[in-house]
């Protein structure tokens, strides 16, 4: 076995300075005339320890982080140097190939991200060496109905948030009349605080292509689109390169692998509109229009892109398919709960000690996720709540921390599974201000097509702003609840229907904080600029500085 050094160079790694580390390692190896393979990989998931460097030798694997250019020499001297050096123990993340000594990585079960941080995303050979494009070979030998049955048996549910059974969706689209069908991958990861799709695409783009190929065969589609955010330039680049390689390898194009399947994928870059994550708005955007949603039904499966039957899933859903085909539906189903199979990736961020991408079996509790993997709150501060599903989701308070991460259990709390954003907040976050933050977002991202969302979110934001300034009365809270009801039941699309969720859940679990603002003009977390100080900017800054000192 050769010795390999891997440097994580996806967006998070680069932002932390991975490029300088890569150059330093390159220079070190050059100077030592060592024949060691230096590899650029995607993100291993432990973003809080970026830049990450993994050294794999015959005797095992050691993961270091955060690595700076100055730390490169002592670290590499340990492995290749003339004399053994000692390094600070906190530079080492894990000394095992399976990462069992580092729970954040060791307790993950990776179905869609096993190769992120392991292979060079620019290398098709790397993907092929890890069973790449084996699942599609197997798939092409089966009937489309058999493939759909396997997906159904795996209990795979749509990972975009709503959790519609994927196999059923594929079947509905397959059964539509007409020869022309489309499949779309929704990679418009608009939820602030979410980066699962970015990590998957940057780290292992071929898996998504293979998953889409499986869907194309099952559904009978000839053309696929990947709608990806323009804010992810590295992901777009990785996809373009992977599609080009797939063409050369013969898994995209005409008569793929001699099966008679014709399939091609085009990339559509989004242009910065949150509402385009909604499937009908997304299709309008692909068609070159303003990304406004339209009424459903008809659903895209029946009447989609340019009126043709269209299957829309998100990145993680498609990326689950290759592993399901290779390992069998029972294996996948058994990873999760009886109702939903497999794993779910989350972007664990906020006031958490270990932040990054985590993929865990569905059914794990929030406590395991936040404390065992996440290591609790930064600086040992008390855990207050966790927000799931971004602006469409809700807050789950500390007392419900034993909730299982499952579509149904999370829904019962008022939150949703969502696409995977998981933002942890500690006692320095004011829940009223937090709800106001989400409303500011949905209000500015509302496309303006329907009145409840356009006007309702604005009115809700107004009331929340009043509360945070200590200018509201208890009647305003009743009004707010009333508006929540109206906006969620009468809005046209998911954006408006779910916009009240952050308000509803914070009102449900943190009503005392709202009341402190309203009745005592007091912000328990010390965040809100309350009445009497509102117009005095100097005092506001002073208050903020005091909060910082307290932290």
């Amino acid at each position: 076995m050769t010795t390999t050094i891997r440097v994580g160079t996806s967006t998070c790694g680069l932002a932390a300075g991975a490029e300088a580390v890569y150059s330093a390692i390159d220079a070190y190896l050059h100077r030592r005339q060592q024949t060691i393979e230096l590899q650029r990989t995607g993100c291993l998931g432990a973003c809080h320890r970026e830049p990450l460097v993994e050294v794999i030798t015959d005797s095992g694997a050691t993961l270091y982080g955060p690595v700076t250019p100055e730390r490169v020499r002592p670290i590499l001297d340990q492995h290749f140097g003339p004399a053994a050096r000692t390094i600070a123990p906190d530079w080492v993340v894990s000394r095992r190939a399976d990462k069992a000594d580092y729970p954040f990585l060791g307790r993950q079960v990776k179905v869609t991200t096993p190769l992120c941080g392991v292979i060079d995303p620019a290398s098709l050979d790397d993907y092929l060496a890890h069973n790449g494009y084996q699942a599609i070979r197997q798939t092409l030998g089966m009937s489309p109905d058999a493939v759909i049955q396997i997906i159904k048996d795996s209990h795979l549910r749509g990972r975009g948030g709503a959790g519609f059974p994927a196999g059923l969706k594929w079947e509905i689209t397959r059964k539509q009349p007409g020869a022309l069908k489309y499949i779309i991958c929704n990679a418009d990861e608009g939820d602030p605080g979410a980066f699962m799709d970015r990590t998957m695409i940057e780290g292992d783009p071929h898996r998504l292509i293979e998953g889409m190929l499986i869907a194309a065969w099952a559904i009978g589609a000839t053309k696929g689109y990947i709608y990806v955010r323009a804010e992810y330039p590295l992901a777009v680049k990785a996809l373009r390169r992977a599609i080009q390689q797939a063409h050369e390898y013969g898994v995209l194009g005409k008569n793929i692998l001699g099966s008679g399947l014709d399939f091609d994928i085009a990339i559509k870059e989004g242009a910065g509109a949150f509402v385009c994550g909604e499937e009908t708005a997304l299709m309008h955007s692909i068609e070159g229009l303003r990304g406004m949603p339209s009424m459903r039904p008809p659903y895209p499966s029946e009447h989609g892109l340019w009126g043709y039957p269209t299957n829309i899933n998100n990145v993680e859903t498609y990326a689950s398919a290759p592993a399901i085909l290779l390992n069998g539906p029972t294996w996948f189903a058994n990873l999760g709960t009886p109702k939903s199979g497999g794993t779910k990736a989350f972007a664990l961020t906020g006031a958490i000690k270990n932040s990054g991408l985590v993929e865990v079996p569905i059914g794990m509790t929030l406590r395991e996720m936040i404390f065992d993997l996440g290591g609790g709150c930064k600086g040992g501060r008390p855990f207050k709540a966790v927000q799931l599903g971004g602006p469409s989701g809700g807050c789950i308070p500390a007392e419900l921390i034993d909730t299982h991460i499952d579509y149904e259990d999370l829904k019962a709390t008022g939150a949703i599974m969502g696409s995977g954003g998981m933002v942890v907040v500690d006692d320095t976050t004011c829940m009223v201000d937090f709800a106001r933050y989400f409303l500011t977002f949905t209000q500015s991202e509302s496309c303006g097509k329907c009145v409840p969302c356009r006007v309702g979110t604005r009115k809700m934001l107004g009331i929340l702003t009043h509360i945070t300034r200590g200018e509201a009365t208890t009647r305003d809270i009743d009004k707010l609840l009333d508006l929540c009801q109206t906006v969620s039941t009468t809005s046209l699309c998911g954006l408006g229907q779910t916009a009240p969720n952050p308000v509803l859940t914070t009102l449900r679990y943190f009503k005392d904080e709202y009341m402190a603002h309203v009745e005592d003009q007091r912000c328990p977390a010390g965040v809100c600029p309350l009445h009497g100080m509102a117009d005095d900017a100097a005092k506001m800054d002073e208050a903020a500085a005091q909060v910082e000192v307290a932290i």
Partner: protein
Amino acid sequence: MSSQVKEASPRRYFYQGDPLLAPPAPDLALILDRHKGQPDALITVLEELQEHYGYLPREALEYVSRALGFPLSRVYGVVTFYNLFQLNPPGRYVVRVCRGTACHVNRSDEILKKIKASLGIKEDETTPDHLFTLQTVACMGACSLAPVVVVNDRTYGRMTPEKAVDVVEELAAEAKEEPSS
């Protein structure tokens, strides 16, 4: 007196002065030619144009409308719908403060406030010397490094209000040293 002249001169003026009669700039033509006849090309073309010019000049939009066969109103409608598109030329450094959830929880509002004060401009404005444009962005997807500030293509992670102002001031000093580039 001379109604004929009155009739003729504005028309002549119109045609002679119409910039769209002249062939588009070669780079513009290159972008348009690649996508002619594609009904879904509009957003892609606009993205490529913005990549090329840094913003969307009115004249280029008029060419796009004519070349792709859409009314200018529809082109304008699409441009104003999406946050990415800019109708005004940006400064040399586009400073984007991430307002994602993870950044918000880590107090990115303070960073925005300090940068605003330091540059003396509001969001979506450009400094009079065309050096800085300030924007906010919904989420850069680099949440584990929150709070994040992005300047052009470079991402700065784990920012504080003070560090962010330092970054801006360093760039301003750098620009003074080499004003030509």
